[in-house]
Protein backbone atom coordinates (compact mmCIF):
# COMPACT_ATOMS: atom_id res chain seq x y z
CA UNK A 1 0.00 0.00 0.00
CA UNK A 2 1.11 3.54 -0.65
CA UNK A 3 2.06 5.88 2.15
CA UNK A 4 -0.65 8.45 2.91
CA UNK A 5 0.99 11.67 1.82
CA UNK A 6 0.18 15.19 0.66
CA UNK A 7 2.15 14.72 -2.56
CA UNK A 8 4.05 12.05 -4.51
CA UNK A 9 6.01 9.94 -2.06
CA UNK A 10 8.76 7.92 -3.72
CA UNK A 11 12.31 7.41 -2.53
CA UNK A 12 15.45 5.50 -3.35
CA UNK A 13 16.13 2.71 -0.90
CA UNK A 14 18.86 3.71 1.58
CA UNK A 15 20.67 0.41 1.04
CA UNK A 16 20.68 -0.08 -2.73
CA UNK A 17 23.53 -2.21 -4.08
CA UNK A 18 25.34 0.74 -5.68
CA UNK A 19 26.03 2.33 -2.28
CA UNK A 20 28.35 -0.41 -1.05
CA UNK A 21 31.44 0.38 -3.14
CA UNK A 22 31.30 -2.83 -5.18
CA UNK A 23 30.34 -5.12 -2.33
CA UNK A 24 26.98 -6.77 -1.74
CA UNK A 25 25.51 -7.59 1.63
CA UNK A 26 25.21 -11.17 2.80
CA UNK A 27 23.68 -12.18 6.12
CA UNK A 28 24.86 -15.38 7.77
CA UNK A 29 23.41 -17.14 10.81
CA UNK A 30 24.56 -20.27 12.64
CA UNK A 31 21.58 -22.30 13.83
CA UNK A 32 21.47 -23.49 17.45
CA UNK A 33 24.25 -21.13 18.53
CA UNK A 34 22.61 -18.12 20.14
CA UNK A 35 25.75 -17.24 22.06
CA UNK A 36 26.00 -15.03 18.97
CA UNK A 37 22.93 -12.91 19.58
CA UNK A 38 21.94 -12.34 15.96
CA UNK A 39 22.95 -13.32 12.41
CA UNK A 40 25.87 -11.37 10.98
CA UNK A 41 25.90 -8.84 8.15
CA UNK A 42 28.89 -8.84 5.77
CA UNK A 43 29.87 -6.78 2.73
CA UNK A 44 31.47 -9.15 0.18
CA UNK A 45 32.49 -8.71 -3.45
CA UNK A 46 30.20 -10.85 -5.64
CA UNK A 47 33.30 -12.45 -7.18
CA UNK A 48 34.48 -13.87 -3.84
CA UNK A 49 34.52 -17.68 -3.79
CA UNK A 50 32.01 -19.09 -1.33
CA UNK A 51 34.72 -21.29 0.19
CA UNK A 52 36.70 -18.19 1.16
CA UNK A 53 33.87 -17.13 3.44
CA UNK A 54 33.99 -20.43 5.25
CA UNK A 55 37.79 -20.54 5.42
CA UNK A 56 38.68 -16.93 6.01
CA UNK A 57 35.70 -15.05 7.39
CA UNK A 58 33.64 -17.34 9.57
CA UNK A 59 36.52 -18.32 11.91
CA UNK A 60 36.94 -14.66 12.88
CA UNK A 61 33.22 -14.23 13.48
CA UNK A 62 32.20 -17.55 15.03
CA UNK A 63 35.53 -18.93 16.22
CA UNK A 64 34.99 -17.91 19.85
CA UNK A 65 32.50 -20.74 20.24
CA UNK A 66 33.98 -24.09 21.36
CA UNK A 67 31.74 -25.86 18.81
CA UNK A 68 33.27 -24.01 15.89
CA UNK A 69 36.48 -26.04 15.82
CA UNK A 70 34.37 -29.22 15.77
CA UNK A 71 32.41 -28.37 12.64
CA UNK A 72 32.55 -30.93 9.85
CA UNK A 73 31.74 -28.69 6.89
CA UNK A 74 30.89 -31.69 4.72
CA UNK A 75 28.00 -32.40 7.08
CA UNK A 76 26.78 -28.81 7.38
CA UNK A 77 23.27 -28.11 6.12
CA UNK A 78 22.69 -24.79 4.39
CA UNK A 79 19.56 -22.73 4.01
CA UNK A 80 18.86 -19.69 1.87
CA UNK A 81 15.86 -17.61 2.96
CA UNK A 82 14.98 -20.57 5.17
CA UNK A 83 14.89 -23.15 2.35
CA UNK A 84 17.44 -25.97 1.93
CA UNK A 85 20.26 -24.87 -0.35
CA UNK A 86 23.58 -26.31 -1.54
CA UNK A 87 26.41 -23.88 -2.08
CA UNK A 88 29.35 -24.74 -4.33
CA UNK A 89 32.42 -23.77 -2.30
CA UNK A 90 34.59 -23.36 -5.40
CA UNK A 91 32.23 -20.94 -7.09
CA UNK A 92 31.74 -17.25 -6.43
CA UNK A 93 28.85 -15.72 -4.53
CA UNK A 94 27.32 -14.53 -7.80
CA UNK A 95 27.71 -17.98 -9.40
CA UNK A 96 26.05 -19.47 -6.34
CA UNK A 97 23.08 -17.21 -7.06
CA UNK A 98 23.63 -15.01 -4.03
CA UNK A 99 22.27 -11.51 -4.50
CA UNK A 100 22.49 -8.30 -2.47
CA UNK A 101 20.94 -8.75 1.00
CA UNK A 102 20.37 -12.47 0.73
CA UNK A 103 20.27 -14.35 4.01
CA UNK A 104 21.80 -17.79 4.52
CA UNK A 105 22.07 -20.00 7.58
CA UNK A 106 23.96 -23.16 8.35
CA UNK A 107 23.16 -25.98 10.72
CA UNK A 108 25.89 -28.20 12.10
CA UNK A 109 24.28 -31.55 13.02
CA UNK A 110 25.35 -32.83 16.43
CA UNK A 111 26.50 -29.41 17.61
CA UNK A 112 23.87 -27.67 19.72
CA UNK A 113 25.78 -25.11 21.74
CA UNK A 114 26.90 -24.77 25.36
CA UNK A 115 25.56 -27.80 27.27
CA UNK A 116 23.08 -28.43 24.48
CA UNK A 117 21.25 -25.18 25.29
CA UNK A 118 21.45 -23.82 21.72
CA UNK A 119 23.70 -21.10 23.11
Amino acid at each position, binding site marked *: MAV*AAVKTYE*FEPADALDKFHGAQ*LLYIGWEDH*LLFCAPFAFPFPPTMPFGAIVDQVLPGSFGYHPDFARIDWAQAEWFKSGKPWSPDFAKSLAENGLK*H*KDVIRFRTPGLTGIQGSCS
Partner: protein
Amino acid sequence: MDMQATKKKLGLKERYQVMTRGLDWEPSYQKKEDIYPYVAYEGIKIHDWDKWEDPFRLTMDAYWKYQAEKERKLYAIIDAYAQNNGHLNVTDARYLNTVKLFLTGVSPLEYMAHRGFAHAGRQFPGAGPRVACLMQSLDEIRHAQTQIHALSNYNKHYNGLHDFRHMHDRVWYLSVPKSFFDDAVTAGPFEFMVAIGFSFEYVLTNLLFVPFVSGAAYNGDMSTMTFGFSAQSDEARHMTLGLEVIKFILEQDPDNLPIVQRWIDKWTWRGYRVLTLVAMMMDYMLPKRTMSWKEAWEVYFEENGGALFKDLARYGITMPKCAETIALEKDHLSHQAWGTFYNYGAAAAFHTWVPEKEELDWLASKYPDSFDKHYRPRLEYWREQAAKGNRFYNKTLPMLCQTCQIPMLFTEPGDPTKICYREVDYKDNKYHFCSDHCKEIFEHEPEKYIQSWLPVHQIYQGNCFPEGTDPTAEGFDPLAAVLQYYHLEFGRDNLDFEGSEDQKNFDAWRGMATKNA
Protein backbone atom coordinates in the same frame (compact mmCIF):
# COMPACT_ATOMS: atom_id res chain seq x y z
CA MET B 1 -7.44 54.41 25.64
CA ASP B 2 -11.04 53.59 25.12
CA MET B 3 -10.74 49.89 25.96
CA GLN B 4 -13.48 48.77 28.30
CA ALA B 5 -12.32 47.31 31.55
CA THR B 6 -14.08 44.09 32.50
CA LYS B 7 -16.77 44.94 34.99
CA LYS B 8 -16.75 41.84 37.09
CA LYS B 9 -14.35 38.97 37.61
CA LEU B 10 -15.08 35.98 35.39
CA GLY B 11 -16.18 32.69 36.90
CA LEU B 12 -13.81 29.73 36.52
CA LYS B 13 -15.73 28.17 33.66
CA GLU B 14 -16.17 31.42 31.78
CA ARG B 15 -12.57 32.36 32.35
CA TYR B 16 -11.45 29.01 30.98
CA GLN B 17 -13.67 29.48 27.93
CA VAL B 18 -12.31 32.95 27.23
CA MET B 19 -8.69 32.00 27.76
CA THR B 20 -8.76 28.91 25.51
CA ARG B 21 -11.44 28.53 22.86
CA GLY B 22 -12.23 32.24 23.09
CA LEU B 23 -8.82 32.90 21.55
CA ASP B 24 -9.82 31.15 18.32
CA TRP B 25 -11.23 32.99 15.32
CA GLU B 26 -12.78 32.25 11.96
CA PRO B 27 -10.44 33.08 9.10
CA SER B 28 -11.89 35.53 6.59
CA TYR B 29 -9.29 35.94 3.83
CA GLN B 30 -7.52 32.54 3.82
CA LYS B 31 -9.13 29.21 3.04
CA LYS B 32 -9.23 26.73 5.93
CA GLU B 33 -7.58 24.00 3.84
CA ASP B 34 -4.63 26.33 3.22
CA ILE B 35 -4.27 27.05 6.91
CA TYR B 36 -4.54 23.38 7.92
CA PRO B 37 -2.94 21.50 5.02
CA TYR B 38 -2.33 18.22 6.88
CA VAL B 39 -5.70 17.62 8.45
CA ALA B 40 -7.42 15.61 5.70
CA TYR B 41 -4.85 13.43 3.95
CA GLU B 42 -4.68 10.65 6.52
CA GLY B 43 -8.35 9.83 5.84
CA ILE B 44 -9.65 10.77 9.31
CA LYS B 45 -13.02 12.50 9.12
CA ILE B 46 -13.90 15.15 11.72
CA HIS B 47 -17.30 16.81 11.43
CA ASP B 48 -17.46 18.95 14.54
CA TRP B 49 -14.34 20.08 16.36
CA ASP B 50 -16.46 21.63 19.09
CA LYS B 51 -17.40 18.15 20.27
CA TRP B 52 -13.88 17.84 21.65
CA GLU B 53 -14.06 17.74 25.42
CA ASP B 54 -11.07 19.27 27.07
CA PRO B 55 -9.50 16.62 29.25
CA PHE B 56 -7.98 19.16 31.60
CA ARG B 57 -9.20 22.62 32.42
CA LEU B 58 -5.98 24.53 32.57
CA THR B 59 -5.22 27.98 31.23
CA MET B 60 -1.74 29.18 30.36
CA ASP B 61 -1.38 31.48 33.36
CA ALA B 62 -2.30 28.63 35.71
CA TYR B 63 0.08 26.33 33.82
CA TRP B 64 3.06 28.63 34.38
CA LYS B 65 2.20 29.05 38.03
CA TYR B 66 1.95 25.32 38.81
CA GLN B 67 4.96 24.28 36.78
CA ALA B 68 7.16 27.03 38.18
CA GLU B 69 6.32 25.90 41.71
CA LYS B 70 7.11 22.27 40.87
CA GLU B 71 10.40 23.17 39.25
CA ARG B 72 11.52 25.28 42.18
CA LYS B 73 11.14 22.21 44.37
CA LEU B 74 12.79 19.93 41.86
CA TYR B 75 15.86 22.12 41.45
CA ALA B 76 16.20 22.58 45.20
CA ILE B 77 16.43 18.82 45.62
CA ILE B 78 18.77 18.36 42.65
CA ASP B 79 21.08 21.03 44.10
CA ALA B 80 21.07 19.44 47.53
CA TYR B 81 21.77 16.05 45.96
CA ALA B 82 24.72 17.44 44.03
CA GLN B 83 26.15 19.37 46.97
CA ASN B 84 26.00 16.36 49.27
CA ASN B 85 27.69 14.04 46.78
CA GLY B 86 24.45 12.11 46.51
CA HIS B 87 25.90 10.06 43.67
CA LEU B 88 27.91 8.11 46.24
CA ASN B 89 24.69 6.88 47.80
CA VAL B 90 23.57 4.81 44.82
CA THR B 91 23.58 1.08 45.43
CA ASP B 92 26.46 0.26 43.14
CA ALA B 93 28.22 1.99 40.25
CA ARG B 94 26.60 -0.52 37.88
CA TYR B 95 23.36 1.39 38.47
CA LEU B 96 24.78 4.41 36.61
CA ASN B 97 24.59 2.53 33.34
CA THR B 98 20.82 2.79 33.61
CA VAL B 99 21.19 6.55 33.80
CA LYS B 100 23.43 6.53 30.72
CA LEU B 101 20.88 4.54 28.77
CA PHE B 102 18.09 6.89 29.85
CA LEU B 103 19.97 10.08 28.99
CA THR B 104 21.14 8.91 25.57
CA GLY B 105 18.02 6.97 24.61
CA VAL B 106 15.01 8.58 26.26
CA SER B 107 15.65 12.26 27.06
CA PRO B 108 16.12 13.19 23.38
CA LEU B 109 12.71 11.60 22.75
CA GLU B 110 11.15 14.00 25.24
CA TYR B 111 12.47 16.81 23.11
CA MET B 112 11.07 15.18 19.98
CA ALA B 113 7.72 14.82 21.76
CA HIS B 114 7.83 18.56 22.37
CA ARG B 115 8.29 19.14 18.64
CA GLY B 116 5.68 16.55 17.72
CA PHE B 117 2.94 18.00 19.93
CA ALA B 118 3.77 21.52 18.78
CA HIS B 119 3.35 20.35 15.20
CA ALA B 120 0.10 18.48 15.87
CA GLY B 121 -1.26 21.46 17.78
CA ARG B 122 -0.49 23.75 14.86
CA GLN B 123 -2.25 21.46 12.42
CA PHE B 124 -5.54 20.80 14.21
CA PRO B 125 -8.35 23.19 13.28
CA GLY B 126 -10.08 22.74 16.67
CA ALA B 127 -9.14 25.15 19.45
CA GLY B 128 -9.66 22.52 22.19
CA PRO B 129 -7.07 20.00 20.96
CA ARG B 130 -4.76 22.86 19.97
CA VAL B 131 -4.58 24.13 23.54
CA ALA B 132 -4.14 20.59 24.92
CA CYS B 133 -1.28 19.91 22.46
CA LEU B 134 0.35 23.22 23.32
CA MET B 135 0.49 22.34 26.99
CA GLN B 136 1.76 18.85 26.39
CA SER B 137 4.38 20.29 24.05
CA LEU B 138 5.58 22.55 26.86
CA ASP B 139 5.55 19.67 29.34
CA GLU B 140 7.74 17.64 27.03
CA ILE B 141 10.41 20.28 26.58
CA ARG B 142 10.43 20.78 30.36
CA HIS B 143 10.88 17.06 30.83
CA ALA B 144 13.79 17.02 28.40
CA GLN B 145 15.41 19.94 30.23
CA THR B 146 14.81 18.70 33.75
CA GLN B 147 16.10 15.24 32.88
CA ILE B 148 19.24 16.66 31.36
CA HIS B 149 19.79 18.86 34.40
CA ALA B 150 19.04 16.07 36.86
CA LEU B 151 21.46 13.72 35.14
CA SER B 152 24.18 16.24 34.33
CA ASN B 153 25.52 15.89 37.85
CA TYR B 154 26.61 12.34 37.05
CA ASN B 155 28.55 13.56 34.05
CA LYS B 156 31.01 15.27 36.39
CA HIS B 157 31.99 11.93 37.87
CA TYR B 158 31.26 9.08 35.45
CA ASN B 159 31.92 8.14 31.85
CA GLY B 160 29.58 7.77 28.89
CA LEU B 161 27.36 10.78 29.63
CA HIS B 162 29.45 13.45 27.94
CA ASP B 163 27.81 13.74 24.53
CA PHE B 164 24.35 12.22 24.68
CA ARG B 165 22.81 14.36 21.95
CA HIS B 166 25.58 13.58 19.46
CA MET B 167 25.32 9.88 20.28
CA HIS B 168 21.55 9.79 19.96
CA ASP B 169 21.78 10.50 16.23
CA ARG B 170 24.59 8.03 15.55
CA VAL B 171 25.15 5.15 17.95
CA TRP B 172 23.76 1.84 16.66
CA TYR B 173 21.38 0.92 19.49
CA LEU B 174 20.13 4.49 19.84
CA SER B 175 18.77 4.30 16.31
CA VAL B 176 16.03 2.15 17.86
CA PRO B 177 14.41 4.85 20.04
CA LYS B 178 15.38 7.57 17.56
CA SER B 179 13.77 5.90 14.55
CA PHE B 180 10.68 5.09 16.61
CA PHE B 181 10.09 8.75 17.28
CA ASP B 182 11.15 9.92 13.84
CA ASP B 183 8.57 7.52 12.45
CA ALA B 184 5.90 9.13 14.64
CA VAL B 185 6.73 12.77 13.94
CA THR B 186 6.90 12.19 10.18
CA ALA B 187 3.36 10.77 10.20
CA GLY B 188 0.33 13.02 9.96
CA PRO B 189 -1.04 14.83 13.04
CA PHE B 190 -3.71 12.22 13.74
CA GLU B 191 -1.35 9.28 13.50
CA PHE B 192 1.11 11.12 15.72
CA MET B 193 -1.58 11.63 18.36
CA VAL B 194 -2.56 7.96 18.28
CA ALA B 195 1.09 6.84 18.21
CA ILE B 196 2.46 9.00 21.00
CA GLY B 197 -0.60 10.47 22.72
CA PHE B 198 -2.44 7.16 23.00
CA SER B 199 -0.29 4.10 22.32
CA PHE B 200 2.81 5.39 24.06
CA GLU B 201 1.54 7.81 26.70
CA TYR B 202 -1.54 5.86 27.63
CA VAL B 203 -0.86 2.20 26.95
CA LEU B 204 2.90 1.88 27.47
CA THR B 205 4.19 4.84 29.46
CA ASN B 206 3.87 3.10 32.83
CA LEU B 207 6.27 0.49 31.55
CA LEU B 208 8.86 3.15 30.85
CA PHE B 209 8.49 5.57 33.74
CA VAL B 210 7.53 3.37 36.63
CA PRO B 211 10.52 1.03 36.16
CA PHE B 212 12.97 3.90 35.72
CA VAL B 213 11.65 6.01 38.55
CA SER B 214 11.07 3.21 41.03
CA GLY B 215 14.39 1.72 39.93
CA ALA B 216 15.98 5.08 40.79
CA ALA B 217 14.24 5.14 44.17
CA TYR B 218 15.31 1.58 45.00
CA ASN B 219 18.87 2.34 44.03
CA GLY B 220 19.35 5.60 45.88
CA ASP B 221 19.21 7.91 42.86
CA MET B 222 17.32 10.80 44.44
CA SER B 223 17.92 13.02 41.43
CA THR B 224 16.10 10.84 38.91
CA MET B 225 13.43 9.91 41.42
CA THR B 226 12.62 13.55 42.10
CA PHE B 227 12.42 14.28 38.42
CA GLY B 228 10.01 11.36 38.09
CA PHE B 229 7.72 12.67 40.79
CA SER B 230 7.83 16.13 39.30
CA ALA B 231 6.72 14.75 35.92
CA GLN B 232 4.02 12.53 37.42
CA SER B 233 1.18 15.07 37.38
CA ASP B 234 2.01 15.96 33.77
CA GLU B 235 1.99 12.30 32.81
CA ALA B 236 -1.48 11.90 34.28
CA ARG B 237 -2.63 14.80 32.09
CA HIS B 238 -0.97 13.24 29.04
CA MET B 239 -2.76 9.97 29.60
CA THR B 240 -6.09 11.77 29.77
CA LEU B 241 -5.33 13.57 26.52
CA GLY B 242 -4.33 10.31 24.83
CA LEU B 243 -7.63 8.71 25.72
CA GLU B 244 -9.68 11.76 24.75
CA VAL B 245 -8.02 11.79 21.30
CA ILE B 246 -9.09 8.21 20.63
CA LYS B 247 -12.65 8.73 21.83
CA PHE B 248 -13.06 11.97 19.91
CA ILE B 249 -11.80 10.53 16.62
CA LEU B 250 -13.92 7.41 16.92
CA GLU B 251 -17.09 9.29 17.84
CA GLN B 252 -16.73 11.60 14.85
CA ASP B 253 -17.15 9.07 12.02
CA PRO B 254 -17.44 5.28 11.72
CA ASP B 255 -14.94 5.32 8.82
CA ASN B 256 -12.24 6.31 11.31
CA LEU B 257 -12.31 2.99 13.14
CA PRO B 258 -10.20 0.81 10.79
CA ILE B 259 -7.56 3.54 10.44
CA VAL B 260 -7.29 4.05 14.18
CA GLN B 261 -7.22 0.30 14.86
CA ARG B 262 -4.33 -0.10 12.42
CA TRP B 263 -2.42 2.72 14.12
CA ILE B 264 -3.02 1.22 17.55
CA ASP B 265 -1.77 -2.18 16.30
CA LYS B 266 1.29 -0.59 14.73
CA TRP B 267 2.25 1.72 17.56
CA THR B 268 1.69 -0.73 20.36
CA TRP B 269 4.20 -2.99 18.62
CA ARG B 270 6.63 -0.18 17.76
CA GLY B 271 6.50 1.06 21.36
CA TYR B 272 6.89 -2.42 22.78
CA ARG B 273 10.01 -3.04 20.70
CA VAL B 274 11.57 0.13 22.14
CA LEU B 275 10.72 -1.14 25.62
CA THR B 276 13.16 -4.01 25.00
CA LEU B 277 15.72 -1.62 26.51
CA VAL B 278 13.57 -1.21 29.62
CA ALA B 279 13.16 -4.97 29.97
CA MET B 280 16.90 -5.55 30.18
CA MET B 281 17.35 -2.53 32.43
CA MET B 282 14.87 -4.00 34.94
CA ASP B 283 16.20 -7.55 34.91
CA TYR B 284 19.92 -6.94 34.48
CA MET B 285 21.03 -3.36 35.08
CA LEU B 286 19.44 -2.39 38.40
CA PRO B 287 21.64 -3.70 41.23
CA LYS B 288 18.55 -3.64 43.47
CA ARG B 289 15.61 -4.83 41.43
CA THR B 290 12.05 -3.61 41.75
CA MET B 291 10.13 -6.27 39.85
CA SER B 292 10.90 -8.39 36.82
CA TRP B 293 10.07 -7.27 33.29
CA LYS B 294 7.61 -10.11 33.05
CA GLU B 295 5.80 -8.99 36.21
CA ALA B 296 5.72 -5.40 35.00
CA TRP B 297 4.29 -6.45 31.66
CA GLU B 298 1.61 -8.52 33.38
CA VAL B 299 0.57 -5.70 35.71
CA TYR B 300 0.83 -2.71 33.42
CA PHE B 301 -0.15 -4.21 30.11
CA GLU B 302 -2.06 -7.42 30.57
CA GLU B 303 -4.13 -6.23 33.54
CA ASN B 304 -4.39 -2.45 33.12
CA GLY B 305 -4.20 -2.50 29.33
CA GLY B 306 -6.67 -5.36 29.21
CA ALA B 307 -9.19 -3.27 31.15
CA LEU B 308 -8.59 -0.32 28.84
CA PHE B 309 -9.26 -2.32 25.70
CA LYS B 310 -12.41 -3.72 27.28
CA ASP B 311 -13.56 -0.11 27.77
CA LEU B 312 -12.75 0.74 24.18
CA ALA B 313 -14.70 -2.26 22.85
CA ARG B 314 -17.82 -0.10 22.65
CA TYR B 315 -16.11 1.90 19.93
CA GLY B 316 -15.18 -1.29 18.08
CA ILE B 317 -11.50 -1.18 19.10
CA THR B 318 -9.94 -4.55 19.86
CA MET B 319 -6.76 -5.60 21.68
CA PRO B 320 -3.78 -5.28 19.27
CA LYS B 321 -2.94 -8.60 17.64
CA CYS B 322 0.69 -8.32 18.69
CA ALA B 323 -0.30 -8.87 22.34
CA GLU B 324 -0.22 -12.62 21.66
CA THR B 325 3.34 -12.50 20.36
CA ILE B 326 4.41 -10.29 23.26
CA ALA B 327 2.97 -12.78 25.75
CA LEU B 328 5.19 -15.46 24.19
CA GLU B 329 8.25 -13.20 24.38
CA LYS B 330 7.91 -12.08 27.99
CA ASP B 331 9.96 -14.99 29.33
CA HIS B 332 12.79 -14.26 26.91
CA LEU B 333 12.97 -10.59 25.99
CA SER B 334 15.26 -9.21 28.68
CA HIS B 335 17.70 -12.14 28.47
CA GLN B 336 18.04 -11.92 24.72
CA ALA B 337 18.48 -8.14 24.90
CA TRP B 338 21.15 -8.22 27.60
CA GLY B 339 22.96 -10.99 25.73
CA THR B 340 23.09 -8.67 22.74
CA PHE B 341 24.64 -5.82 24.68
CA TYR B 342 27.07 -8.26 26.28
CA ASN B 343 28.02 -9.37 22.74
CA TYR B 344 28.56 -5.81 21.56
CA GLY B 345 29.94 -4.42 24.81
CA ALA B 346 32.90 -2.92 22.94
CA ALA B 347 30.58 -0.69 20.91
CA ALA B 348 28.18 0.49 23.65
CA ALA B 349 28.50 3.75 25.59
CA PHE B 350 27.81 1.97 28.86
CA HIS B 351 29.23 -1.04 30.65
CA THR B 352 27.96 -4.61 30.52
CA TRP B 353 28.63 -7.59 32.77
CA VAL B 354 27.52 -11.06 33.70
CA PRO B 355 25.24 -10.86 36.75
CA GLU B 356 26.52 -12.32 40.01
CA LYS B 357 25.42 -15.75 41.13
CA GLU B 358 22.64 -14.54 43.43
CA GLU B 359 21.37 -12.37 40.61
CA LEU B 360 21.25 -15.38 38.32
CA ASP B 361 19.23 -17.15 41.01
CA TRP B 362 16.84 -14.19 41.20
CA LEU B 363 16.38 -14.40 37.43
CA ALA B 364 15.76 -18.14 37.66
CA SER B 365 13.09 -17.56 40.31
CA LYS B 366 11.37 -14.91 38.19
CA TYR B 367 11.68 -16.89 34.97
CA PRO B 368 11.29 -20.53 36.02
CA ASP B 369 10.23 -21.65 32.53
CA SER B 370 13.09 -20.17 30.58
CA PHE B 371 16.12 -18.94 32.48
CA ASP B 372 17.94 -22.06 33.63
CA LYS B 373 17.22 -23.89 30.42
CA HIS B 374 18.12 -21.28 27.84
CA TYR B 375 20.04 -18.40 29.38
CA ARG B 376 21.99 -19.50 32.44
CA PRO B 377 24.37 -21.77 30.46
CA ARG B 378 25.18 -18.88 28.12
CA LEU B 379 25.86 -16.40 30.94
CA GLU B 380 27.89 -18.86 32.99
CA TYR B 381 30.01 -19.73 30.00
CA TRP B 382 30.71 -16.05 29.42
CA ARG B 383 31.65 -15.60 33.04
CA GLU B 384 34.02 -18.57 33.02
CA GLN B 385 35.70 -17.29 29.89
CA ALA B 386 35.98 -13.75 31.27
CA ALA B 387 37.63 -15.14 34.39
CA LYS B 388 40.21 -16.78 32.11
CA GLY B 389 40.87 -13.46 30.42
CA ASN B 390 38.83 -14.37 27.37
CA ARG B 391 35.90 -11.99 27.76
CA PHE B 392 33.61 -12.27 24.72
CA TYR B 393 33.44 -9.21 22.50
CA ASN B 394 31.56 -9.82 19.30
CA LYS B 395 33.31 -7.82 16.57
CA THR B 396 31.16 -8.72 13.56
CA LEU B 397 28.23 -6.42 12.89
CA PRO B 398 24.76 -7.90 13.26
CA MET B 399 21.87 -8.11 10.81
CA LEU B 400 19.14 -5.60 11.69
CA CYS B 401 15.37 -5.48 11.34
CA GLN B 402 14.36 -2.97 8.67
CA THR B 403 11.47 -1.58 10.77
CA CYS B 404 12.49 -1.52 14.44
CA GLN B 405 16.25 -1.45 13.62
CA ILE B 406 17.03 -3.87 16.46
CA PRO B 407 19.55 -6.63 15.69
CA MET B 408 17.74 -9.81 14.66
CA LEU B 409 17.96 -11.22 18.17
CA PHE B 410 14.36 -12.25 18.72
CA THR B 411 13.40 -15.90 18.51
CA GLU B 412 10.43 -17.55 16.81
CA PRO B 413 7.24 -17.11 18.81
CA GLY B 414 7.09 -20.32 20.85
CA ASP B 415 10.61 -21.57 19.99
CA PRO B 416 13.38 -19.78 21.89
CA THR B 417 16.09 -21.80 20.11
CA LYS B 418 15.46 -20.38 16.61
CA ILE B 419 15.99 -16.83 15.44
CA CYS B 420 12.84 -15.42 13.84
CA TYR B 421 13.58 -14.48 10.21
CA ARG B 422 11.02 -12.74 7.97
CA GLU B 423 11.66 -11.16 4.58
CA VAL B 424 9.92 -9.21 1.82
CA ASP B 425 10.91 -8.45 -1.77
CA TYR B 426 10.01 -4.92 -2.75
CA LYS B 427 11.05 -3.24 -6.02
CA ASP B 428 14.11 -5.46 -6.67
CA ASN B 429 15.40 -5.27 -3.12
CA LYS B 430 15.15 -7.61 -0.19
CA TYR B 431 14.15 -6.46 3.28
CA HIS B 432 14.43 -8.40 6.52
CA PHE B 433 12.39 -8.31 9.71
CA CYS B 434 12.53 -9.59 13.26
CA SER B 435 8.84 -10.48 13.43
CA ASP B 436 5.54 -10.71 11.59
CA HIS B 437 4.51 -7.37 13.08
CA CYS B 438 7.55 -5.43 11.89
CA LYS B 439 7.06 -7.06 8.48
CA GLU B 440 3.39 -6.00 8.31
CA ILE B 441 4.27 -2.43 9.26
CA PHE B 442 6.77 -2.35 6.40
CA GLU B 443 4.33 -3.88 3.92
CA HIS B 444 1.76 -1.25 4.66
CA GLU B 445 4.13 1.65 3.96
CA PRO B 446 7.23 0.27 2.23
CA GLU B 447 8.27 3.62 0.77
CA LYS B 448 8.72 4.97 4.27
CA TYR B 449 10.82 2.14 5.67
CA ILE B 450 13.09 1.59 2.67
CA GLN B 451 14.68 4.86 3.82
CA SER B 452 15.63 3.47 7.24
CA TRP B 453 19.07 4.63 8.35
CA LEU B 454 20.30 1.24 9.51
CA PRO B 455 23.52 1.75 11.47
CA VAL B 456 25.17 -1.47 10.26
CA HIS B 457 24.52 -0.71 6.60
CA GLN B 458 25.60 2.89 7.07
CA ILE B 459 28.90 1.70 8.54
CA TYR B 460 29.43 -0.58 5.52
CA GLN B 461 28.61 2.28 3.18
CA GLY B 462 31.42 4.23 4.84
CA ASN B 463 29.16 6.90 6.35
CA CYS B 464 30.12 6.41 10.00
CA PHE B 465 33.76 7.40 10.19
CA PRO B 466 35.11 10.80 11.29
CA GLU B 467 35.45 13.26 8.46
CA GLY B 468 38.65 12.80 6.48
CA THR B 469 39.03 9.11 7.38
CA ASP B 470 40.58 6.97 4.65
CA PRO B 471 39.16 3.46 5.01
CA THR B 472 41.58 2.20 2.35
CA ALA B 473 44.67 3.22 4.36
CA GLU B 474 46.87 0.42 5.62
CA GLY B 475 46.04 -0.75 9.13
CA PHE B 476 42.63 0.97 9.07
CA ASP B 477 40.65 -0.11 12.12
CA PRO B 478 36.94 0.23 11.32
CA LEU B 479 35.71 -0.31 14.89
CA ALA B 480 38.03 2.38 16.24
CA ALA B 481 36.90 4.80 13.53
CA VAL B 482 33.22 4.13 14.21
CA LEU B 483 33.71 4.72 17.95
CA GLN B 484 35.44 8.02 17.20
CA TYR B 485 32.51 8.98 15.02
CA TYR B 486 30.20 8.16 17.96
CA HIS B 487 32.43 10.26 20.33
CA LEU B 488 32.77 7.11 22.40
CA GLU B 489 36.11 6.72 24.09
CA PHE B 490 37.48 3.21 23.88
CA GLY B 491 38.46 1.76 27.25
CA ARG B 492 36.55 4.37 29.27
CA ASP B 493 32.96 4.47 28.04
CA ASN B 494 32.70 0.89 26.79
CA LEU B 495 33.77 -2.69 27.72
CA ASP B 496 32.98 -4.71 30.82
CA PHE B 497 32.05 -3.05 34.10
CA GLU B 498 34.68 -5.19 35.80
CA GLY B 499 37.87 -3.17 35.68
CA SER B 500 36.18 0.00 34.42
CA GLU B 501 37.15 3.50 35.53
CA ASP B 502 33.59 3.99 36.85
CA GLN B 503 33.97 0.96 39.07
CA LYS B 504 37.37 2.02 40.41
CA ASN B 505 36.38 5.64 41.02
CA PHE B 506 33.12 4.80 42.71
CA ASP B 507 34.83 2.38 45.06
CA ALA B 508 37.59 4.84 45.86
CA TRP B 509 35.24 7.80 46.44
CA ARG B 510 32.75 5.85 48.47
CA GLY B 511 35.65 4.53 50.50
CA MET B 512 36.76 8.10 51.19
CA ALA B 513 33.22 9.01 52.20
CA THR B 514 32.71 6.12 54.58
CA LYS B 515 36.16 5.14 55.90
CA ASN B 516 39.29 6.75 57.32
CA ALA B 517 41.68 6.32 54.45
